[in-house]
Structure formats: C-alpha cells, structure tokens
C-alpha cells in the first residue's frame, strides 16, 4: 500500500509539473507562430524584394553606336556583324586538347594560345572566354563544321564599328577602340555604360560626339544561383542605337582630295562660303581606322608612327604653316580699308629692296617694275607687299587678319587637337619673346613669313569670307536641319536690309570687290601665278592666290644657285599653298590646299584646284537638290 500511495503521489508531482511546462510550451509555440507571421505576412514584400535581388542579376551588353553619314546619307561610320569565337571553360573536357585543335583550325599563334591560357585562369569557369574577336567568314564556317567535336566552343555573332571608306575620313571621324581607364574616369556616360567589349571614340568626332553616339545598352536579366552562375534568362531588354549623325562632308570630294594628295603630305579643305559647311577636309597621309577596332598590331602601329609624312597629325586642323603669299589678299584688304593705298597706288619692284640694313628679296630676281595692287596680286610681287606692309604696320594688319579668322580655332568644339595658330603684333612679341618688334618683321609678315602661323582650315575660312562678300560665317561640320540653306544665306547677305544677322567684316564692301578682282586676275589673266591652272568655262571658273612658304631662310649662296625643287632635300623644300574660290561669277565654295615640301604653290598646289573645282561645281546641283528638298519639306 505504501508503495502504491507513493507511486500516486509521485505521479501527481509529475503531472502537475508537466502541466506547468505544457503551458509554457503553448506560449513558446505561440511566440514562434507570431514570429512567422511577422516575417511571412507583415514583411513579405520586403523579403520578396530581397529574394529577387538575390536571384536576379542584370548583364549589360555593349550598346550599338550611332551611324555617321556624309551629307548625302552615305554611311561613313557604321556597324558590321562580326563573328567571334568564345569558349565556356566549364563545358570543355580537355582544355589543352581543345586549344591545339583550335590552333590548327584558326592558325592561332603560340603567343595567342599562351594569352588565352592566362585569361582563362582569371575567369570563372562559366564566364565566356574570347578566343577570337573577329573571325573571317571562312574561319567561322570552318568552326561551325567542326563544332560537333569542339565541346564548349561557342561561335558568336556580334556587332562592331566599321569604316567603309577606310582611311579617307580618319582625321575627321577618328576611330573607336577599347576604353582606357582614363576614358572611363573622364566621361560619366562611358562609366555608366561600360561593359567589357564596349568600344569608345578615341579621336575626332567619334570622341567629341561620344555621348550622342554611344547608345543604350541591351540588358539581359538572368536568374543566378548563389555563386553567380546564370541559370536561366528571364528577360531581354533591347537597348537603343546611338543617335545618327550626319556631317556636312561630301564623300566624292573627300575621295578626290585623298587621290590628289596621294603619296604627299598635305591637306585639302573645302567650305561652303555661305553656310560655312565643311565640304571636304582631308589630311594626307591618312591611316586605316579599322585597324584599331580589335587592337592594332605593334608592327602596323610602328609603321604608322614612324612614317616620315606623319599620318597621325591632322594637318588640316593642327598643322601650322606660314601662309606665304596666300596672306596677300588680307594684307591688301587691310591696307585698302585703312586708306593706306588705293587701286592706283604703285610701287617699283627691282627684285629686292634694302631697308633697315637688310635686303628683302622679291621672288622674281629681275623685279616686276612698277606694279599696282591688281598686278602685284596677280604676279605675287613681294616688293609691293613689303612696301604696303611697311606703311600699314603689323598691328592694323592683325586686326583685319583676326576678323577673317586667323589666330583662332575654327572647329575647336569638335576637335580637341585643333590649333589656333598665331598672328603676331608688337604686343605679342613683347609678351611672348620679350623683345621689341623690328620693322623688318612687319615686312616679312606682309608676305606671310616670320612669326605668322596658320592652319589650312583657317586659310579656307579666310578665303570663304572674302568670297562671300566679306561676311562672317560660322564653320560647321554637322548638319542642322533648322539652319538656313546656302541659297537662303546668300540672299540674306546680298539683301543689305535684312542682313543684320550676318556681321560684315569690311568697312567698305568696295575693298572686298577689289581684292576679289585681284584674285581673279591672279588665276585667269596672263602672267597670273596660277594662270596655268585656270578653267575658262565660266561654270567652273575660279579665283585664287598661290603661296610658297619657306621652311628655312634662304641663304645667299642658295639664292645664287637657284636650285630646282627636286634638287633640295625633302625637309628643306618649300610648302606649296593655294587658296581659291569659285565659280567666280556666282561664288559658292572656297578651297585651301597645302602640299608640304611641295615646292611652289603655282606648280604643286594650284593644279589640284582645277580638278577640285570641276568636281565641286558638278556636285553642287546634288547638294542644292538635297537642301532644297529639306527647305520644301519644312
């Protein structure tokens, strides 16, 4: 009985205590359910977002760059499908065997194989490894034939920049290549859109217009696992191709420029004298921008870099030259405007003058005799311009020269490498060289030698502004649908009542006319320096001024020897220059030509103008048609 009582008492204790913890259990389970409720019901949205953030990863793809077209809509920088070869390392059974197979199929170099092996070590096994960025169609076909035995190899079709006209636009467009760290740091937009494989502009318009051209990335959304491996694609968001850009250049004229300068160092620029549109702008020699797309080979790069004709320099914008006699129209205009001379003013040329204990030579040893302005321009008499410059003074000359665009950048906002050149005056010399101006320097400035430095595009603008009757124009390289056509601008300039928007660069328009006539004589009258290059057909007839810029001072001995151009070492030969505008009866276009170390302007540069004007004038009707259509459609 005792045992039984005892047992009952014991079980009472056990049961009572069980009841206490049973109650505790219920409370604790209640707590757990409350916690579940708060996580799963209250904060469900928050955790759903976090879960999506966990599992969804975005991959940006390189955006498609906007096309660049010439004035007529021909694509000059486009996009091309390229075939690439990728390897997904985790799908490869025997990596070394695969490489040896690929080496045989694609003729890969041992260096390249080593590089691929190195790259592989830096990648995650599921990230694709680019073996070849640009396969030829034949290689692509070959790979596709062998594909069944090449596990892990993935032929990929992608888009790459392409310059169909190869080297003729290089100095205008620049080129694209992989962005450097500096490129990314300097441009927020590149930084935002950067993905491996993106190409950005390195030079020229490709660089300046980067933000318009770059486009919007395609975005792939993938579900990924905890290790970042893509499991499946959820969405493909198409990006946007960059803005299409139409420039003012005419490929035909550009092509001819390249042809004319083939094998020479130099530049040709052509400009619409009313709208300021650049029709052609070619710097010779050029190089192929397509070589830079997938990284240029060292050999090719050395070849370009070490070329003595300096293909890397955009001579049109950053080449600094003494203008030589091409400055004479401005000297004449300045003297006329300042009332120093009139058309009747004459100077006797004896072949040289002695002034300030120095001898100043005219190019013609025998001298020109008594010459007036028209004659002096026609024959490019240096003695006449020494005298005019002496009477005028360099400071007044500079004012006129600057009005016509010398010493200032012409397309500066689009080309980082453009140079401003310089037009010296007395103040400039004191400030920069610390010495006082010597009168003799005024004389040589009057024939475009000495401290004066100009770029070919400046000379072209200068000529254009003389040709249009002395109105300031704003040079352009991009088309703008909202601007006036050449015809409209011309009308506005001629109608003096409404021409407020066009700033005249003259005091008396008669003076401009005088200079124009002098330039006409220079090309179209016997004894004119470019008479041989004239075109008699009024449809093409042009007016111009030759220039021969000395590269080094001619010594007395050399003067006596009177060497022919080919007898002088290349680096010491004169630069040949020519500026012109036409057609004379109804001017439209201005041209500036420079041939480095080409000899005299009349023999090396002026003949190119003949061919150019024929083409430019013929092309005018097409250009006009296009701008008229635009006018009509507005």
């Amino acid at each position: 009985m005792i045992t039984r009582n005892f047992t009952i008492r014991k079980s009472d204790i056990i049961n009572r205590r069980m009841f206490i913890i049973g109650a505790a259990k219920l409370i604790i389970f209640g707590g757990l359910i409350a916690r579940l409720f708060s996580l799963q019901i209250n904060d469900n949205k928050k955790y759903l977002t976090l879960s999506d953030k966990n599992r969804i990863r975005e991959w940006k793809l390189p955006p498609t760059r906007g096309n660049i077209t010439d004035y007529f809509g021909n694509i000059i920088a486009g996009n091309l499908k390229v075939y690439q070869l990728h390897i997904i390392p985790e799908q490869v059974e025997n990596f070394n065997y695969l490489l040896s197979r690929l080496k045989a199929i694609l003729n890969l170099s041992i260096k390249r194989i080593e590089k691929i092996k190195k790259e592989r070590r830096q990648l995650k096994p599921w990230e694709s490894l680019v073996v070849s960025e640009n396969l030829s169609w034949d290689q692509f076909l070959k790979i596709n034939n062998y594909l069944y035995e090449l596990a892990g190899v993935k032929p990929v079709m992608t888009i790459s920049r392409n310059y169909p006209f190869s080297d003729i636009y290089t100095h205008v467009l620049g080129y694209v290549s992989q962005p450097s760290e500096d490129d990314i740091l300097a441009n927020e937009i590149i930084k935002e859109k950067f993905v491996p494989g993106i190409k950005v502009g390195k030079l020229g318009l490709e660089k300046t217009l980067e933000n318009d051209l770059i486009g919007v990335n395609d975005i792939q959304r993938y579900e990924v696992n905890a290790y970042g491996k893509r499991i499946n694609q959820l969405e493909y968001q198409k990006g946007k191709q960059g803005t299409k850009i139409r420039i003012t250049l005419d490929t035909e004229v550009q092509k001819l420029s390249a042809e004319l300068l083939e094998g020479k160092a130099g530049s040709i620029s052509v400009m619409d004298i009313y709208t300021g549109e650049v029709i052609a702008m070619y710097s010779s020699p050029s190089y192929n921008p397509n070589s830079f797309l997938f990284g240029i080979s060292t050999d090719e790069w050395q070849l370009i870099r070490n070329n003595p004709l300096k293909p890397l320099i955009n001579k049109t914008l950053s080449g600094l030259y003494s203008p030589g006699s091409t400055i004479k129209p401005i000297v004449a205009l300045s003297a006329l405007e300042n009332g120093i001379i009139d058309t009747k003013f004459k100077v006797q040329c004896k072949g040289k003058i002695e002034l300030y204990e120095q001898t100043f030579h005219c190019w013609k040893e025998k001298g020109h005799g008594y010459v007036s302005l028209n004659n002096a321009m026609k024959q490019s008499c240096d003695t006449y311009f020494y005298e005019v410059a002496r009477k005028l003074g360099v400071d007044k000359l500079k004012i006129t020269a600057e009005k016509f665009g010398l010493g200032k950048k012409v397309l500066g906002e689009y080309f980082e490498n453009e140079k401003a050149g310089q037009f010296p005056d007395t103040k400039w010399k004191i400030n920069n060289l610390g010495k006082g101006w010597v009168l003799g320097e005024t004389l040589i400035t009057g024939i475009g030698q000495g401290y004066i430095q100009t770029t070919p595009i400046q000379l072209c603008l200068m000529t254009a502004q003389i040709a249009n009757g002395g109105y300031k124009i704003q040079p352009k390289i991009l088309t703008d649908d909202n601007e006036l056509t050449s015809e409209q601008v011309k009308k506005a300039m001629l109608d003096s009542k409404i021409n407020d928007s066009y700033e005249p660069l003259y005091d008396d328009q008669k003076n401009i006319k005088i200079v124009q006539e002098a330039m006409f004589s220079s090309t179209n009258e016997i004894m004119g320096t470019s008479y041989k290059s004239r075109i008699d057909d009024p449809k093409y007839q042009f007016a111009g001024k030759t220039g021969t810029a000395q590269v080094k001072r001619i010594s007395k001995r050399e003067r006596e020897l009177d060497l022919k151009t080919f007898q002088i070492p290349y680096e010491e030969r004169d630069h040949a220059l020519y500026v012109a505008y036409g057609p004379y009866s109804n001017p439209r276009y201005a041209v500036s030509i420079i041939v480095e170390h080409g000899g005299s302007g009349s023999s090396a540069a002026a003949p190119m103008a003949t061919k150019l004007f024929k083409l430019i004038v013929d092309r005018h009707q097409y250009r006009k048609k296009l701008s008229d259509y635009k006018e009509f459609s507005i």
Partner: protein
Amino acid sequence: MYHYKRLNSDQSFFQKIKNLDYILLTCILILSILSVFIMYSTDGGEFLYHTKSHLTKLVVFFVLMLTISFFNIKFWYFCSYFLYGVIILLLIWVSIYGIKVSGSQRWMNLYFLALQPSELMKIGIILCLAKYYHRVSVEKVNSFTSIFFALTIILIPIILVISQPDLGTSILIALSGLIILWLGGVKIKYFFFSFITFLISLPFIISNLQPYQKLRILTFLDPDRDPLGAGYQIIQSKIALGSGGFSGKGFLKGTQSYLDFLPEKHTDFIFTLFSEEFGFVGSVGLLLLYTVIILRIIQIGSISRSSFARLFCFGFAFAIFIYITVNLSMVLGLLPIVGSPLPIMSYGGSSMLATMIGFGIVMSAKVHNQQTIA
C-alpha cells in the same frame, strides 16, 4: 525462454498490434512522407542522393521503431542504465577515434551510417534519468546525494559532447536532462537559484567559448554586421522565410533553395525551405502536426501506470518540443545558430535514429501502459 516470458506481458502479438497508438503512428507517417517530399525539393526536384538516403533511413528506422514498441516497457526500464553506459562509451570512443569534420570530432563511421553518439545521448539521458527518478523516493528527491547523482549523470555526457566541440547538442542534452529533474520533483527554488547563478556566470562562460561560437552569438545579435560571412546564413534564411509569404512559392519553386542561397538546406535549415515553398499556412500546419505528436506523447505518458514510462514520455515530449523550438528560433533569427536538427524532417541518420527510438519507447509505453514496474 523464461527470461523472455518474464519481460513480456501476457499480450499476444496481435493484441500488441491492436494496442499500438494509431494517432501517433499516423502523425509520424505524415511527417515522414512530408520529409521525403521536402528532401526531394532540396535535391532540386530530382530523386537524388539525399532523397534516396533519407527514404531508406526512414523505412529502416520506422521498422526499428515498431520493433522497439513490441518490447515491454519493463525491458527498456532494465536496459536504461546499460544503454546510457554504452552511449557514454561510444562518446569516449568518438573522442579518440572519431571522424573529424570541419573541426569537430562527432562521428563514428558505421559504413551504412555516420553515427553521431551525441544524438543518441539525447534519448539516453532521458532513459537514464527516468529510471533514476523512478527509483528515488519522493522524500529523497531533494537530498544532496540524489541531486548530486542526477547532475553527474547529466554532466558526464555534456563534458564529452562539449569537448567535441558541439555546443548545440550539449545544450539540448542538458535541457532534456534538467526537465526530468524538474518532473522528478526537484525543488523549484533550486532551479531558480541555478538560473540566477547561470546568469551571473554567463560572462565567464562566454569568455571561454570557442571563437566560432562567440562569432555566432555576435552574428545573432546583429546579422548585418558581416552579411556575406557569418551573418549570411541567417539573412538568407530570413529572406527565404519572408519571401514565402502566406501560401508560399509552391512545391519545388523555392528560389532561395533552388539557387543555393540557403545554407545547410538539407539539415538544420530544412524548415526554411519548407516555409519558403509552403508559406505561413504550411509552417503553421507543420507546427500543428508537431503539437499533435507532442500532446499525444504526453497523453500516452499520463495513462501509463509506471513512473518510468510517464517520466520518459513527458521528458521525450519536452525534448521534441525543445528541438523544434531551438531549430525554429534559430532559423527565424531568434536564437544564435547552434547545430540542432528538426526532428524527422532534417537529413541526418543519427538524429532520426534517436527520434525513432524515442517514438518506439513511447509506443512501447502505450502498448504496455498497464505494466507496473516495482
């Protein structure tokens, strides 16, 4: 043969089958089937290694449970000390020859199963202390010697398990043991004072913890302090749970687990996967199922005539409750991460073996509930 007859009651085999507790049995079966489906989901919806292995173990251990239940409860009473001793020996053996995995030496290789004796000790301690308190008279319960012996029984395995090191399991063993002390009638004030002492000594305990254990506690207090390192598990677990929402993402559609964001999804974090796929509804349902099991075990305990059976049932019910609470609190971010599996659901043979043995003995208590033990 005599021996056999003495230990078994006079019920026939068919009577025993009839006396099995079918409510408990059904619940265990539902839980088992559920666990196989969840394991199938952790394998990414394929019938792979974990699922196969889990299923095999379930079948074997379920049969073992039934077998155990046919033995008289008196037999288990007699075996208690012996089993406790065997497990202690196993623990010692493991501490010398055991397999070392990621810094702790807990396993012995039985070829078909990597046995973790500390898991078995969770049951062993209940068996042993149930027998001890069955034998101690009410008057002597609070005597110094009896408490001393009881504490020694608890401390020996705890020291062995802590030295593996395995803090989580040792805490569970300690709690399972202490609950029998509580049920056995040890004075409340002792518990109270011990608890106070524990609180006071807590700083010293913490300073003696292993670096990884300290890290776990720090991480628990602020999981975001190192989201990719130590805090990763708990953050990902919360994301999985939270994103499950009311009704879950659907079977085999738990992105967190499918995409490998969940750590230890087969074992300790299995509830997270379950909850991600079946949501709040599923989780509460699972908790209800466990509650039914616990209540049924308590009920079986309360109809048992012997104190041993009663103590064991109550103790085991409490132990299961503790396992669930610790596991859920851990995955819900309420407790630091200590390794503690969810009974039956988690992958892991030893834990399942121990739980099934426990169920078996409970079932035996039910079948033989009229059995008195002198």
